[in-house]
């Protein structure tokens, strides 16, 4: 495996992004439904059904209603899902079943640009979903402005990170069924144990430390801190974690995909 050479990557990667975007546009009405509806369903279920039993949650020195506590987590989970599912199932279908990558490689594009374009697109999907959800959540009065505007760049960063993770899985799985494994062992535990639905402090000490390794923990922390304007110094550490993660995972994903496709 070889680390990708930056000279192999040009703005042509955006052509791949453009392809995926133009197809997304064809079906935007359907694509917009989940991010608009999902937060409403969760807020209804948790806010009305569960919040009365949970009461208030103490977070960052403030007392938060349970619904307010989980609203930023829902946006963070959507960022993870949109990017991860795009570069796993969707990219795999394009690579393996539709031969889209083969077609692209017969044009002036090269493999590094194709993979980068796919990941940029996946991050864009995260941004679209996070923005739409934030609008709904804000209309319900849960987000604070201007802090909540930072959700959009955070979605780009978090989207890139999970796009990289997804693409690494795509580079390694033997077949499309195998995605169940990283989803069951990685994505689902993250969904549950990243400070999403309960504060990490409720976990035993060792589990708290383990949770600090999970990228979603840091994304949730950042999204929650920004959207509720609960500023603290350790947000910088979480930001650093995501930045380093992106800088490592994207080249690794490209390198592994090159190894898979170029034989």
């Amino acid at each position, binding site marked *: 495996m070889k680390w990708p050479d930056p000279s192999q990557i040009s703005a042509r990667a955006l052509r791949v992004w453009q392809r995926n975007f133009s197809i997304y546009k064809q079906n935007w009405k359907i694509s917009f439904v989940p991010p608009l509806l999902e937060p409403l369903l969760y807020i209804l279920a948790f806010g009305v059904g569960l919040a009365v039993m949970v009461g208030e949650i103490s977070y960052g020195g403030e007392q938060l209603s349970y619904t307010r506590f989980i609203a930023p987590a829902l946006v963070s989970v959507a960022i993870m899902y949109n990017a991860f599912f795009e570069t796993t199932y969707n990219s795999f279908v394009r690579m393996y079943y539709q*031969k889209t990558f083969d*077609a692209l490689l*017969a044009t*002036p594009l090269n493999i590094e640009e194709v993979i980068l374009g796919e990941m940029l697109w996946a991050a864009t999907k995260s941004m679209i979903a996070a923005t739409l959800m934030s609008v709904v959540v804000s209309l319900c009065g849960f987000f604070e402005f201007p802090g909540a505007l930072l959700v959009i760049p955070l979605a780009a960063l978090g989207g890139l990170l999970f796009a990289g993770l997804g693409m690494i899985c795509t580079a390694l799985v033997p077949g499309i069924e195998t995605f169940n494994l990283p989803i069951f062992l990685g994505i689902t535990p993250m969904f549950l144990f990243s400070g999403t639905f309960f504060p990490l402090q409720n976990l035993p000490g060792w589990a708290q430390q383990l949770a600090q390794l999970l990228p979603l923990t840091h994304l949730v922390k950042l999204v929650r801190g920004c959207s509720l304007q609960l500023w603290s110094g350790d947000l910088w550490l979480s930001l650093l974690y995501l930045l380093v993660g992106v800088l490592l995972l994207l080249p690794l994903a490209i390198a592994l995909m090159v190894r898979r496709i170029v034989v």
Partner: protein
Amino acid sequence: MPILHVESLRKAYGSLNAVDGISFAVQPGECFGLLGPNGAGKTTTIRMLYGYTPRDSGRLELFGLDIDRHLREIKRRTGICQQEDSLDPDLSVRDNLIGYARYFSIPRREAQQSADQLLEFFALQGRAKDKIMTLSGGLKRRLMLARALVNQPEFLILDEPTTGLDPQSRQLLWQKLAELKGRGLTILLTTHYMEEAERLCDRLVIVDHGRILVEGQPRALVREHVGHTVLEIADPDAAVRDFLSSKSCRVEDLDRRLLVYLDDGDELFLQLTREVRAEGCTLRPASLEDLFLKLTGRELRE
């Protein structure tokens, strides 16, 4: 200067030498055929020509440009029609062409124009708005070929363009390819249909096990390696075999069928049919298929 220059090209997968030292050149305006049975190394060779598969060794030049340093430029000027359909199922027929033009950074208006011209050329204009899923195999192939021309290439690479097509689609595709050749387009074609190669190729190589067995013009190769005519004898009996063994001619024994390769003249045929047996004896011109089978053997591949 040749359009394509291939020298000592090699590619191995483990212990299998998929391409084992192939050299040839394609001249401007000619249609060059790469013939061989399945697994001979045709597709691997083609894939190395546009940088999809890295080669182990050897030199590759297209348009006089070294492939390692000018791959993008080479791909911009080349049209590639891959063996497997890679059309975009999410786009309509016309948008497949326009979308593909984007990868070559062709301006939108220009792309639309050339898409419409190509649709007309390949008699696809009636299906312009249809989804790929609704197209038959023949229509998909035509669209694949149209797509390979969207960047107005100087060199067209076709990997088994008519495999799996019905005779009508095949005839139409051959006619279109002949037209393109008439306009001066240089074409490299892989196929295992001998009729296709005979009809389209000015020159060809037959490859097997990653090596070139012969190179030349199809008619000349047949004459040189097979002869002018072939006498086929169905269900040969002892009398026929005795007759042939008394003559000095090359006979291939397929048990239920004998093939006799003849250089010229039909005396042997006339003598056989008059004196021994007329039934089941056919004299026909030697074909590229005879040459192909002679060189690559009759045993089944794969």
